[in-house]
Protein backbone atom coordinates (compact mmCIF):
# COMPACT_ATOMS: atom_id res chain seq x y z
CA UNK A 1 0.00 0.00 0.00
CA UNK A 2 2.86 2.35 0.73
CA UNK A 3 3.98 2.38 -2.91
CA UNK A 4 1.21 4.93 -3.52
CA UNK A 5 3.68 7.43 -2.00
CA UNK A 6 6.02 6.73 -4.88
CA UNK A 7 3.29 7.10 -7.51
CA UNK A 8 4.26 10.32 -9.39
CA UNK A 9 0.70 11.08 -10.50
CA UNK A 10 -0.81 12.54 -7.28
CA UNK A 11 2.39 14.43 -6.47
CA UNK A 12 2.17 16.25 -9.81
CA UNK A 13 -0.95 17.94 -8.43
CA UNK A 14 -0.11 18.17 -4.72
CA UNK A 15 3.38 19.61 -5.24
CA UNK A 16 2.45 22.74 -7.26
CA UNK A 17 -0.51 23.46 -4.93
CA UNK A 18 1.84 23.17 -1.96
CA UNK A 19 4.59 25.44 -3.28
CA UNK A 20 2.03 27.96 -4.51
CA UNK A 21 0.58 28.20 -0.99
CA UNK A 22 4.08 28.33 0.51
CA UNK A 23 5.07 31.11 -1.87
CA UNK A 24 1.97 33.03 -0.74
CA UNK A 25 3.00 32.46 2.89
CA UNK A 26 6.50 33.77 2.21
CA UNK A 27 4.98 37.10 1.21
CA UNK A 28 5.02 39.23 -1.92
CA UNK A 29 7.99 38.86 -4.22
CA UNK A 30 9.49 35.74 -2.72
CA UNK A 31 9.22 32.07 -3.69
CA UNK A 32 11.42 32.03 -6.80
CA UNK A 33 13.98 29.52 -5.59
CA UNK A 34 11.27 27.32 -4.06
CA UNK A 35 9.42 27.33 -7.37
CA UNK A 36 12.48 26.42 -9.42
CA UNK A 37 13.39 23.47 -7.17
CA UNK A 38 9.79 22.26 -7.10
CA UNK A 39 9.43 22.57 -10.88
CA UNK A 40 12.61 20.58 -11.38
CA UNK A 41 11.11 17.83 -9.23
CA UNK A 42 7.84 18.04 -11.15
CA UNK A 43 9.67 17.63 -14.45
CA UNK A 44 11.42 14.58 -13.01
CA UNK A 45 8.09 13.17 -11.81
CA UNK A 46 6.51 13.78 -15.22
CA UNK A 47 9.35 11.89 -16.87
CA UNK A 48 8.88 8.94 -14.49
CA UNK A 49 5.14 8.98 -15.22
CA UNK A 50 5.91 9.04 -18.95
CA UNK A 51 8.12 5.95 -18.68
CA UNK A 52 5.44 4.20 -16.62
CA UNK A 53 2.79 4.95 -19.24
CA UNK A 54 5.17 3.91 -22.03
CA UNK A 55 5.79 0.55 -20.37
CA UNK A 56 2.45 -0.42 -18.89
CA UNK A 57 -0.15 1.72 -20.66
CA UNK A 58 -2.46 4.35 -19.14
CA UNK A 59 -2.18 4.81 -15.35
CA UNK A 60 -5.33 5.44 -13.30
CA UNK A 61 -5.35 6.97 -9.80
CA UNK A 62 -8.62 6.42 -7.93
CA UNK A 63 -8.92 9.46 -5.65
CA UNK A 64 -10.48 8.56 -2.30
CA UNK A 65 -10.56 4.92 -3.35
CA UNK A 66 -14.26 5.07 -4.41
CA UNK A 67 -13.98 4.33 -8.13
CA UNK A 68 -15.31 6.11 -11.22
CA UNK A 69 -18.95 6.98 -11.09
CA UNK A 70 -19.04 7.83 -7.38
CA UNK A 71 -15.55 9.24 -6.80
CA UNK A 72 -13.20 11.07 -9.14
CA UNK A 73 -10.58 9.22 -11.20
CA UNK A 74 -7.30 10.68 -12.45
CA UNK A 75 -6.13 9.19 -15.75
CA UNK A 76 -2.68 9.53 -17.29
CA UNK A 77 -2.73 8.27 -20.88
CA UNK A 78 -0.38 9.13 -23.73
CA UNK A 79 -2.09 12.38 -24.66
CA UNK A 80 -2.27 13.76 -21.11
CA UNK A 81 1.32 12.78 -20.23
CA UNK A 82 2.58 14.48 -23.41
CA UNK A 83 0.84 17.69 -22.33
CA UNK A 84 2.17 17.27 -18.78
CA UNK A 85 5.70 16.98 -20.11
CA UNK A 86 5.17 20.13 -22.18
CA UNK A 87 3.86 22.02 -19.12
CA UNK A 88 6.78 21.13 -16.86
CA UNK A 89 9.32 21.53 -19.69
CA UNK A 90 8.10 25.07 -20.40
CA UNK A 91 7.56 26.04 -16.75
CA UNK A 92 11.07 25.28 -15.49
CA UNK A 93 13.07 27.53 -17.86
CA UNK A 94 10.39 30.21 -17.53
CA UNK A 95 10.77 30.07 -13.74
CA UNK A 96 14.51 30.72 -14.09
CA UNK A 97 13.67 33.51 -16.54
CA UNK A 98 11.05 35.04 -14.24
CA UNK A 99 13.41 34.99 -11.28
CA UNK A 100 15.72 37.34 -13.17
CA UNK A 101 12.89 39.26 -14.88
CA UNK A 102 11.06 40.12 -11.64
CA UNK A 103 14.21 41.14 -9.80
CA UNK A 104 12.23 43.51 -7.59
CA UNK A 105 8.46 43.76 -7.97
CA UNK A 106 7.44 40.12 -8.39
CA UNK A 107 4.31 40.88 -6.36
CA UNK A 108 2.08 37.82 -6.33
CA UNK A 109 3.67 36.26 -9.44
CA UNK A 110 4.98 33.11 -7.79
CA UNK A 111 1.81 31.99 -5.97
CA UNK A 112 -0.32 32.81 -9.03
CA UNK A 113 2.05 30.92 -11.32
CA UNK A 114 2.05 28.01 -8.87
CA UNK A 115 -1.72 27.75 -8.90
CA UNK A 116 -1.74 28.09 -12.69
CA UNK A 117 0.65 25.15 -13.08
CA UNK A 118 -1.30 23.13 -10.49
CA UNK A 119 -4.48 23.81 -12.46
CA UNK A 120 -2.77 22.68 -15.69
CA UNK A 121 -1.52 19.45 -14.16
CA UNK A 122 -4.89 18.76 -12.56
CA UNK A 123 -6.67 19.44 -15.84
CA UNK A 124 -4.44 17.16 -17.89
CA UNK A 125 -4.86 14.35 -15.38
CA UNK A 126 -8.58 14.64 -14.65
CA UNK A 127 -11.08 12.22 -16.16
CA UNK A 128 -14.23 13.78 -14.67
CA UNK A 129 -16.23 16.48 -16.44
CA UNK A 130 -17.19 18.51 -13.33
CA UNK A 131 -13.68 18.26 -11.94
CA UNK A 132 -12.50 19.64 -15.30
CA UNK A 133 -14.87 22.59 -14.72
CA UNK A 134 -13.18 23.34 -11.39
CA UNK A 135 -9.68 23.03 -12.91
CA UNK A 136 -10.75 25.32 -15.79
CA UNK A 137 -11.91 27.92 -13.25
CA UNK A 138 -8.69 27.58 -11.25
CA UNK A 139 -6.76 28.03 -14.51
CA UNK A 140 -8.76 31.06 -15.68
CA UNK A 141 -8.59 32.93 -12.39
CA UNK A 142 -4.85 32.32 -12.12
CA UNK A 143 -4.33 33.48 -15.70
CA UNK A 144 -6.47 36.59 -15.15
CA UNK A 145 -4.57 37.37 -11.95
CA UNK A 146 -1.27 37.08 -13.83
CA UNK A 147 -2.47 39.29 -16.69
CA UNK A 148 -3.60 41.94 -14.19
CA UNK A 149 -0.25 41.75 -12.36
CA UNK A 150 1.19 45.20 -11.89
CA UNK A 151 -2.18 46.90 -12.17
CA UNK A 152 -1.50 49.06 -15.26
CA UNK A 153 -4.88 50.26 -16.64
CA UNK A 154 -4.37 48.62 -20.05
CA UNK A 155 -3.52 45.33 -18.34
CA UNK A 156 -6.46 45.50 -15.97
CA UNK A 157 -8.85 46.21 -18.85
CA UNK A 158 -7.44 43.26 -20.82
CA UNK A 159 -7.66 41.07 -17.72
CA UNK A 160 -11.29 42.06 -17.17
CA UNK A 161 -12.28 41.28 -20.76
CA UNK A 162 -10.38 37.95 -20.53
CA UNK A 163 -12.16 37.15 -17.24
CA UNK A 164 -15.62 37.89 -18.61
CA UNK A 165 -15.04 35.80 -21.76
CA UNK A 166 -13.60 33.02 -19.62
CA UNK A 167 -16.46 33.03 -17.11
CA UNK A 168 -19.10 33.05 -19.83
CA UNK A 169 -17.32 30.14 -21.48
CA UNK A 170 -17.16 28.26 -18.16
CA UNK A 171 -20.87 28.93 -17.69
CA UNK A 172 -21.64 27.37 -21.06
CA UNK A 173 -19.37 24.42 -20.24
CA UNK A 174 -21.13 23.96 -16.90
CA UNK A 175 -24.55 23.95 -18.58
CA UNK A 176 -23.20 21.22 -20.86
CA UNK A 177 -22.11 19.19 -17.83
CA UNK A 178 -25.53 19.74 -16.22
CA UNK A 179 -27.27 18.38 -19.31
CA UNK A 180 -24.98 15.35 -19.48
CA UNK A 181 -25.61 14.61 -15.79
CA UNK A 182 -29.31 15.01 -16.44
CA UNK A 183 -29.24 12.49 -19.30
CA UNK A 184 -26.76 9.86 -18.03
CA UNK A 185 -26.56 10.50 -14.28
CA UNK A 186 -22.72 10.55 -14.25
CA UNK A 187 -19.90 12.91 -15.13
CA UNK A 188 -17.02 10.41 -15.22
CA UNK A 189 -15.62 10.21 -18.76
CA UNK A 190 -14.77 6.51 -18.40
CA UNK A 191 -18.37 5.65 -17.45
CA UNK A 192 -19.86 7.98 -20.06
CA UNK A 193 -17.92 6.69 -23.08
CA UNK A 194 -19.77 3.35 -23.46
CA UNK A 195 -23.14 4.99 -22.74
CA UNK A 196 -22.88 7.27 -25.75
CA UNK A 197 -25.26 5.47 -28.05
CA UNK A 198 -25.54 6.04 -31.76
CA UNK A 199 -28.83 7.97 -31.52
CA UNK A 200 -28.11 10.55 -28.83
CA UNK A 201 -31.05 12.59 -27.44
CA UNK A 202 -31.24 16.23 -28.49
CA UNK A 203 -30.00 17.29 -25.05
CA UNK A 204 -26.65 15.69 -25.84
CA UNK A 205 -26.27 17.67 -29.08
CA UNK A 206 -26.91 20.87 -27.10
CA UNK A 207 -24.52 19.79 -24.36
CA UNK A 208 -21.77 19.10 -26.91
CA UNK A 209 -22.45 22.42 -28.62
CA UNK A 210 -22.36 24.43 -25.40
CA UNK A 211 -19.22 22.72 -24.05
CA UNK A 212 -17.43 22.97 -27.38
CA UNK A 213 -18.30 26.65 -27.86
CA UNK A 214 -17.18 27.43 -24.34
CA UNK A 215 -13.85 25.71 -24.85
CA UNK A 216 -13.33 27.36 -28.25
CA UNK A 217 -13.79 30.74 -26.54
CA UNK A 218 -11.18 29.80 -23.95
CA UNK A 219 -8.79 28.64 -26.71
CA UNK A 220 -9.31 31.98 -28.52
CA UNK A 221 -10.11 30.25 -31.81
CA UNK A 222 -10.90 32.71 -34.58
CA UNK A 223 -14.27 34.30 -33.85
CA UNK A 224 -13.43 34.30 -30.13
CA UNK A 225 -9.82 35.50 -30.47
CA UNK A 226 -10.39 39.22 -29.63
CA UNK A 227 -9.40 38.93 -25.97
CA UNK A 228 -6.03 37.24 -26.53
CA UNK A 229 -3.81 39.91 -28.17
CA UNK A 230 -4.38 42.60 -25.50
CA UNK A 231 -4.10 40.03 -22.68
CA UNK A 232 -1.05 38.15 -23.94
CA UNK A 233 0.45 41.14 -25.74
CA UNK A 234 0.40 43.47 -22.76
CA UNK A 235 1.29 41.20 -19.86
CA UNK A 236 4.79 40.74 -18.44
CA UNK A 237 7.00 38.53 -20.65
CA UNK A 238 7.02 35.39 -18.46
CA UNK A 239 3.25 35.72 -18.04
CA UNK A 240 2.57 36.02 -21.76
CA UNK A 241 4.89 33.04 -22.30
CA UNK A 242 3.01 30.90 -19.77
CA UNK A 243 -0.37 31.95 -21.19
CA UNK A 244 0.40 31.56 -24.88
CA UNK A 245 2.41 28.37 -24.50
CA UNK A 246 0.27 26.50 -21.97
CA UNK A 247 -3.07 28.00 -20.94
CA UNK A 248 -4.69 28.13 -24.40
CA UNK A 249 -3.39 24.59 -25.00
CA UNK A 250 -5.31 23.29 -21.96
CA UNK A 251 -8.71 24.14 -23.47
CA UNK A 252 -7.57 22.80 -26.86
CA UNK A 253 -6.59 19.54 -25.07
CA UNK A 254 -10.11 19.44 -23.60
CA UNK A 255 -11.70 19.92 -27.03
CA UNK A 256 -9.55 17.02 -28.25
CA UNK A 257 -10.44 14.90 -25.23
CA UNK A 258 -14.18 15.57 -25.70
CA UNK A 259 -13.94 14.91 -29.44
CA UNK A 260 -12.11 11.61 -28.94
CA UNK A 261 -13.65 10.16 -25.77
CA UNK A 262 -17.01 11.78 -25.02
CA UNK A 263 -18.66 12.94 -28.27
CA UNK A 264 -16.88 10.95 -31.03
CA UNK A 265 -19.78 10.89 -33.49
CA UNK A 266 -21.01 14.41 -32.74
CA UNK A 267 -17.69 16.12 -33.43
CA UNK A 268 -17.36 14.31 -36.74
CA UNK A 269 -20.27 16.45 -37.87
CA UNK A 270 -18.82 19.78 -36.71
CA UNK A 271 -15.18 18.94 -37.60
CA UNK A 272 -15.08 20.60 -41.04
CA UNK A 273 -16.41 23.78 -39.41
CA UNK A 274 -13.60 23.65 -36.86
CA UNK A 275 -11.12 23.20 -39.68
CA UNK A 276 -12.47 26.23 -41.52
CA UNK A 277 -12.33 28.32 -38.35
CA UNK A 278 -8.76 27.16 -37.91
CA UNK A 279 -7.88 28.18 -41.44
CA UNK A 280 -9.51 31.56 -40.89
CA UNK A 281 -7.54 31.95 -37.66
CA UNK A 282 -4.26 31.24 -39.49
CA UNK A 283 -4.95 33.77 -42.22
CA UNK A 284 -6.40 36.52 -39.99
CA UNK A 285 -3.87 36.05 -37.19
CA UNK A 286 -0.91 36.13 -39.57
CA UNK A 287 -2.29 39.17 -41.40
CA UNK A 288 -2.71 41.09 -38.14
CA UNK A 289 0.75 39.99 -36.99
CA UNK A 290 2.21 41.40 -40.19
CA UNK A 291 0.54 44.76 -39.69
CA UNK A 292 1.51 45.57 -36.11
CA UNK A 293 4.71 47.38 -35.14
CA UNK A 294 4.81 46.26 -31.53
CA UNK A 295 6.81 43.06 -31.15
CA UNK A 296 4.79 41.62 -28.23
CA UNK A 297 1.50 42.29 -30.02
CA UNK A 298 3.00 40.60 -33.12
CA UNK A 299 3.91 37.51 -31.12
CA UNK A 300 0.44 37.50 -29.52
CA UNK A 301 -1.24 37.62 -32.95
CA UNK A 302 1.10 34.83 -33.99
CA UNK A 303 -0.44 32.74 -31.20
CA UNK A 304 -3.91 33.39 -32.64
CA UNK A 305 -2.61 32.18 -36.00
CA UNK A 306 -0.74 29.13 -34.74
CA UNK A 307 -3.78 28.01 -32.74
CA UNK A 308 -5.54 27.74 -36.09
CA UNK A 309 -3.18 24.87 -36.98
CA UNK A 310 -4.36 22.89 -33.98
CA UNK A 311 -7.93 22.95 -35.24
CA UNK A 312 -6.99 21.76 -38.72
CA UNK A 313 -6.59 18.40 -37.00
CA UNK A 314 -10.28 17.81 -36.45
CA UNK A 315 -11.47 17.31 -40.04
CA UNK A 316 -8.57 14.85 -40.50
CA UNK A 317 -9.03 12.73 -37.35
CA UNK A 318 -8.81 9.10 -38.42
CA UNK A 319 -8.02 5.71 -36.89
CA UNK A 320 -4.47 5.93 -38.29
CA UNK A 321 -3.82 8.58 -35.64
CA UNK A 322 -1.76 10.77 -38.02
CA UNK A 323 -3.84 13.87 -37.38
CA UNK A 324 -3.80 13.33 -33.59
CA UNK A 325 -0.01 13.02 -33.66
CA UNK A 326 0.22 16.14 -35.81
CA UNK A 327 -1.99 18.08 -33.40
CA UNK A 328 -0.01 17.09 -30.31
CA UNK A 329 3.40 17.69 -31.92
CA UNK A 330 2.15 21.10 -33.13
CA UNK A 331 0.86 21.92 -29.64
CA UNK A 332 4.22 20.97 -28.07
CA UNK A 333 6.30 22.66 -30.77
CA UNK A 334 4.26 25.86 -30.51
CA UNK A 335 4.37 25.71 -26.71
CA UNK A 336 8.16 25.57 -26.59
CA UNK A 337 8.73 28.00 -29.46
CA UNK A 338 6.18 30.59 -28.30
CA UNK A 339 7.53 30.53 -24.73
CA UNK A 340 11.04 31.07 -26.17
CA UNK A 341 9.81 33.87 -28.42
CA UNK A 342 8.01 35.76 -25.64
CA UNK A 343 11.07 35.30 -23.40
CA UNK A 344 13.33 36.65 -26.14
CA UNK A 345 11.00 39.61 -26.74
CA UNK A 346 11.02 40.26 -23.01
CA UNK A 347 14.82 40.48 -23.07
CA UNK A 348 14.76 42.80 -26.12
CA UNK A 349 12.22 45.10 -24.45
CA UNK A 350 14.24 45.23 -21.24
CA UNK A 351 17.39 45.97 -23.22
CA UNK A 352 15.97 48.67 -25.48
CA UNK A 353 13.25 49.96 -23.16
CA UNK A 354 10.98 50.01 -26.21
CA UNK A 355 8.40 47.63 -27.61
CA UNK A 356 8.66 48.65 -31.27
CA UNK A 357 10.60 46.89 -34.04
CA UNK A 358 12.67 49.94 -34.85
CA UNK A 359 14.32 49.83 -31.44
CA UNK A 360 15.67 46.35 -32.17
CA UNK A 361 18.26 47.18 -34.83
CA UNK A 362 20.73 49.08 -32.71
CA UNK A 363 20.94 46.45 -30.02
CA UNK A 364 21.01 43.23 -32.07
CA UNK A 365 24.69 42.45 -31.64
CA UNK A 366 24.53 43.10 -27.89
CA UNK A 367 22.12 40.20 -27.24
CA UNK A 368 23.12 37.65 -29.92
CA UNK A 369 21.94 34.62 -27.92
CA UNK A 370 18.44 36.09 -27.59
CA UNK A 371 18.19 36.75 -31.32
CA UNK A 372 19.43 33.23 -32.01
CA UNK A 373 16.69 31.96 -29.69
CA UNK A 374 14.12 34.14 -31.46
CA UNK A 375 15.39 32.78 -34.80
CA UNK A 376 15.16 29.15 -33.72
CA UNK A 377 11.67 29.74 -32.30
CA UNK A 378 10.77 31.41 -35.61
CA UNK A 379 12.03 28.36 -37.51
CA UNK A 380 9.67 26.18 -35.48
CA UNK A 381 6.70 28.50 -36.07
CA UNK A 382 7.43 28.54 -39.79
CA UNK A 383 7.50 24.75 -39.74
CA UNK A 384 10.95 24.62 -41.36
CA UNK A 385 13.28 21.69 -40.68
CA UNK A 386 14.99 20.72 -38.41
CA UNK A 387 12.29 21.77 -35.91
CA UNK A 388 9.34 20.05 -34.19
CA UNK A 389 7.07 22.48 -36.04
CA UNK A 390 8.30 20.90 -39.26
CA UNK A 391 7.39 17.40 -38.05
CA UNK A 392 3.92 18.65 -37.15
CA UNK A 393 3.57 20.22 -40.61
CA UNK A 394 4.80 17.01 -42.26
CA UNK A 395 2.32 14.85 -40.32
CA UNK A 396 -0.53 17.29 -41.02
CA UNK A 397 0.14 17.35 -44.77
CA UNK A 398 0.52 13.55 -44.74
CA UNK A 399 -2.83 13.20 -42.97
CA UNK A 400 -4.49 15.65 -45.37
CA UNK A 401 -3.08 13.93 -48.46
CA UNK A 402 -4.07 10.48 -47.21
CA UNK A 403 -7.64 11.84 -47.13
CA UNK A 404 -7.11 13.50 -50.49
CA UNK A 405 -8.12 16.85 -48.97
CA UNK A 406 -5.99 19.37 -50.83
CA UNK A 407 -7.60 22.38 -49.18
CA UNK A 408 -5.95 21.73 -45.83
CA UNK A 409 -2.56 21.22 -47.51
CA UNK A 410 -2.80 24.64 -49.09
CA UNK A 411 -3.78 26.19 -45.74
CA UNK A 412 -0.85 24.54 -43.93
CA UNK A 413 1.64 25.63 -46.60
CA UNK A 414 0.17 29.14 -46.79
CA UNK A 415 0.25 29.45 -43.02
CA UNK A 416 3.91 28.51 -42.97
CA UNK A 417 4.79 31.16 -45.56
CA UNK A 418 2.77 33.81 -43.67
CA UNK A 419 4.58 32.85 -40.48
CA UNK A 420 7.87 33.26 -42.36
CA UNK A 421 6.75 36.76 -43.38
CA UNK A 422 6.17 38.04 -39.85
CA UNK A 423 9.10 36.20 -38.28
CA UNK A 424 11.56 37.62 -40.79
CA UNK A 425 9.95 41.05 -40.36
CA UNK A 426 11.48 40.95 -36.87
CA UNK A 427 14.67 39.07 -37.73
CA UNK A 428 15.48 41.56 -40.51
CA UNK A 429 16.00 44.20 -37.84
CA UNK A 430 18.83 42.13 -36.39
CA UNK A 431 20.81 42.42 -39.63
CA UNK A 432 20.08 46.09 -40.33
CA UNK A 433 23.03 48.46 -40.02
CA UNK A 434 21.75 50.93 -37.47
CA UNK A 435 23.29 53.57 -35.23
CA UNK A 436 24.49 52.30 -31.87
CA UNK A 437 21.43 52.33 -29.60
CA UNK A 438 22.50 54.52 -26.73
CA UNK A 439 19.77 53.31 -24.39
CA UNK A 440 21.10 49.73 -24.06
CA UNK A 441 20.48 48.33 -20.60
CA UNK A 442 22.43 45.13 -19.82
CA UNK A 443 20.20 42.05 -19.34
CA UNK A 444 20.93 39.13 -16.97
CA UNK A 445 22.46 36.17 -18.83
CA UNK A 446 20.10 33.65 -17.22
CA UNK A 447 17.19 35.24 -19.12
CA UNK A 448 18.96 34.83 -22.46
CA UNK A 449 19.88 31.24 -21.68
CA UNK A 450 16.31 30.40 -20.61
CA UNK A 451 14.97 31.65 -23.94
CA UNK A 452 17.67 29.73 -25.81
CA UNK A 453 17.05 26.46 -23.94
CA UNK A 454 13.33 26.60 -24.80
CA UNK A 455 13.98 27.32 -28.48
CA UNK A 456 16.68 24.65 -28.71
CA UNK A 457 14.29 22.12 -27.11
CA UNK A 458 11.78 22.65 -29.93
CA UNK A 459 14.55 22.01 -32.47
CA UNK A 460 15.91 18.92 -30.70
CA UNK A 461 12.36 17.51 -30.54
CA UNK A 462 12.37 17.99 -34.31
CA UNK A 463 15.22 15.51 -34.60
CA UNK A 464 13.80 12.80 -32.38
CA UNK A 465 10.04 12.24 -32.10
CA UNK A 466 9.94 8.44 -31.88
CA UNK A 467 9.43 8.20 -28.13
CA UNK A 468 6.74 10.89 -28.22
CA UNK A 469 4.84 8.94 -30.87
CA UNK A 470 5.11 5.74 -28.85
CA UNK A 471 3.76 7.65 -25.85
CA UNK A 472 0.80 8.98 -27.84
CA UNK A 473 -0.07 5.49 -28.98
CA UNK A 474 -0.69 4.52 -25.35
CA UNK A 475 -4.36 4.74 -24.59
CA UNK A 476 -5.20 6.62 -27.75
CA UNK A 477 -8.84 5.67 -28.45
Amino acid sequence: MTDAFLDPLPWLIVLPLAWAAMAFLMGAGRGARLAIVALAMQLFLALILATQVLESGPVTHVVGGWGAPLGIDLLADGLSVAMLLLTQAVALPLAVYAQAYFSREAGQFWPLAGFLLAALNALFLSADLFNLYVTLELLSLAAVGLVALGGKPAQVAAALRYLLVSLTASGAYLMGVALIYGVYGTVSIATLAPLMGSAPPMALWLSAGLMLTGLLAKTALFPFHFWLPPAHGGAAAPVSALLSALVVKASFYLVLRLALDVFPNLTALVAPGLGLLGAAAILYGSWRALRTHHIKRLVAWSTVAQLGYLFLVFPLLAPDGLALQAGVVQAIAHGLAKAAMFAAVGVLMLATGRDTLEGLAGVAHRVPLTLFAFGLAGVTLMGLPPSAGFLAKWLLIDAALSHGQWGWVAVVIGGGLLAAAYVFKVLRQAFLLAPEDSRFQPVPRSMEWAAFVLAAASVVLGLRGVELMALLAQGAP
Partner: protein
Amino acid sequence: MTSGLVFALAGVLLFVLGLGGVVMLSHALRRILAFNLMGSGAFLVLVGLAQRDGGVDPVPQAMVLTGIVVAVAATALALALVRRLHGAHRDD
Protein backbone atom coordinates in the same frame (compact mmCIF):
# COMPACT_ATOMS: atom_id res chain seq x y z
CA MET B 1 -44.33 18.39 -13.47
CA THR B 2 -42.18 17.88 -10.36
CA SER B 3 -40.56 20.94 -8.75
CA GLY B 4 -37.23 19.66 -10.10
CA LEU B 5 -38.48 20.05 -13.67
CA VAL B 6 -40.04 23.47 -13.03
CA PHE B 7 -36.79 24.84 -11.67
CA ALA B 8 -34.77 23.15 -14.36
CA LEU B 9 -36.83 25.00 -16.98
CA ALA B 10 -36.53 28.21 -14.97
CA GLY B 11 -32.80 27.56 -14.84
CA VAL B 12 -32.63 27.32 -18.63
CA LEU B 13 -34.38 30.67 -18.99
CA LEU B 14 -32.08 32.22 -16.38
CA PHE B 15 -29.05 30.83 -18.18
CA VAL B 16 -30.12 32.25 -21.52
CA LEU B 17 -31.10 35.57 -19.91
CA GLY B 18 -27.68 35.78 -18.28
CA LEU B 19 -25.88 34.77 -21.49
CA GLY B 20 -27.78 37.44 -23.44
CA GLY B 21 -27.01 39.95 -20.71
CA VAL B 22 -23.26 39.29 -20.78
CA VAL B 23 -23.17 39.58 -24.55
CA MET B 24 -25.38 42.64 -24.92
CA LEU B 25 -24.79 44.78 -21.85
CA SER B 26 -21.90 47.20 -21.95
CA HIS B 27 -21.60 48.26 -18.31
CA ALA B 28 -19.05 46.04 -16.52
CA LEU B 29 -21.06 45.78 -13.28
CA ARG B 30 -24.17 44.68 -15.13
CA ARG B 31 -22.21 42.06 -17.03
CA ILE B 32 -21.01 40.68 -13.71
CA LEU B 33 -24.64 40.46 -12.57
CA ALA B 34 -25.53 38.72 -15.82
CA PHE B 35 -22.71 36.22 -15.35
CA ASN B 36 -24.02 35.40 -11.88
CA LEU B 37 -27.50 34.81 -13.27
CA MET B 38 -26.04 32.51 -15.91
CA GLY B 39 -24.25 30.53 -13.20
CA SER B 40 -27.36 30.25 -11.04
CA GLY B 41 -29.31 29.08 -14.09
CA ALA B 42 -26.81 26.34 -14.78
CA PHE B 43 -26.88 25.25 -11.12
CA LEU B 44 -30.69 25.07 -11.17
CA VAL B 45 -30.59 22.90 -14.28
CA LEU B 46 -27.92 20.67 -12.72
CA VAL B 47 -29.95 19.91 -9.61
CA GLY B 48 -33.42 20.28 -11.12
CA LEU B 49 -32.71 17.90 -14.00
CA ALA B 50 -31.21 15.30 -11.67
CA GLN B 51 -34.24 15.50 -9.41
CA ARG B 52 -36.83 15.74 -12.21
CA ASP B 53 -38.54 12.53 -11.01
CA GLY B 54 -38.69 13.66 -7.38
CA GLY B 55 -36.07 12.21 -5.01
CA VAL B 56 -32.94 13.90 -3.70
CA ASP B 57 -29.53 13.52 -5.36
CA PRO B 58 -26.69 14.74 -3.09
CA VAL B 59 -24.04 14.60 -5.85
CA PRO B 60 -25.25 17.56 -7.96
CA GLN B 61 -26.04 19.42 -4.74
CA ALA B 62 -22.42 19.09 -3.66
CA MET B 63 -21.31 20.22 -7.12
CA VAL B 64 -23.57 23.30 -6.89
CA LEU B 65 -22.11 24.14 -3.50
CA THR B 66 -18.65 24.07 -5.03
CA GLY B 67 -19.96 26.08 -7.97
CA ILE B 68 -21.41 28.81 -5.77
CA VAL B 69 -18.11 29.28 -3.94
CA VAL B 70 -16.23 29.41 -7.25
CA ALA B 71 -18.77 31.93 -8.57
CA VAL B 72 -18.30 34.25 -5.62
CA ALA B 73 -14.52 34.04 -6.03
CA ALA B 74 -14.79 34.96 -9.69
CA THR B 75 -17.25 37.78 -8.97
CA ALA B 76 -14.96 39.24 -6.29
CA LEU B 77 -12.01 39.19 -8.71
CA ALA B 78 -14.10 40.78 -11.45
CA LEU B 79 -15.29 43.52 -9.09
CA ALA B 80 -11.71 44.15 -7.97
CA LEU B 81 -10.65 44.59 -11.60
CA VAL B 82 -13.60 46.89 -12.32
CA ARG B 83 -12.83 49.06 -9.28
CA ARG B 84 -9.13 49.12 -10.12
CA LEU B 85 -9.95 50.05 -13.70
CA HIS B 86 -12.50 52.68 -12.78
CA GLY B 87 -10.40 54.12 -9.99
CA ALA B 88 -7.27 54.14 -12.14
CA HIS B 89 -9.00 56.15 -14.89
CA ARG B 90 -9.48 58.87 -12.36
CA ASP B 91 -5.78 58.83 -11.41
CA ASP B 92 -4.04 59.17 -14.72
